[in-house]
């Protein structure tokens, strides 16, 4: 299964990318995907993430499916 990870702001800076194509096993959760990213890019630990799957907020235990857009968002600071 493949998902697209979307990264923004401090997270995209930490990883050096705004989009990643990631192969994941069936049943992978948002939380497991995040944990994997953090293990590869420890600077991601700096801020607590929010997650969204296909532009809808998701939780750690949300299961991702093939083709999903999974966004990890640092704390927002608009305005």
């Amino acid at each position, binding site marked *: 299964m493949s998902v697209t990870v*979307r990264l*923004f*702001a*401090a997270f995209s*800076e930490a990883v050096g990318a705004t989009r990643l194509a990631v192969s994941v096993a069936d049943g992978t959760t948002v939380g497991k995907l995040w944990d994997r990213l953090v293990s590869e890019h420890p600077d991601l630990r700096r801020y607590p993430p929010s997650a*969204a799957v296909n*532009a809808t907020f998701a939780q750690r235990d949300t299961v991702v499916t093939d083709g999903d857009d999974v*966004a990890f*968002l*640092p704390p*927002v*600071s*608009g*305005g």
Partner: protein
Amino acid sequence: MADTPVATAMQALTSAPLDPGAVERMVARPGAGAICVFQGVVRDSSLGRAVAHLEYEAYREMAEAAMAAIVTEAGQRWPQARLAMVHRTGRLEIGEASVVIAASHPHRGEAFAACRFAIDALKERVPIWKKEVWADGSSWV
């Protein structure tokens, strides 16, 4: 005709300089005795450091949906209010507006309240991020 809130008809996000007058005109109507306009403006210092400029980034799809949801919620809380909000992305210089929110209502109490609600909700919920750039570095806020 029922006085329904106007969802943001103008772009919720733009990289172009903001036009507060245009946002105000979106909510003006004969029944509105009060119009409140809030502008968030780039200031020259933050936590003691001199700011050179700001950069704003948005998760466009979710930010537009979140802003539309705020407008809808304001319409539910203040049924005769109309609200419009626009946030700018990209590079902003000192003195430029990053966000303009206009709220109209027959009465000023509700116009103030709806406008205040909208900026507070935006700052808490909308997927937009600010990066401060100083003379000697930068940081996402």
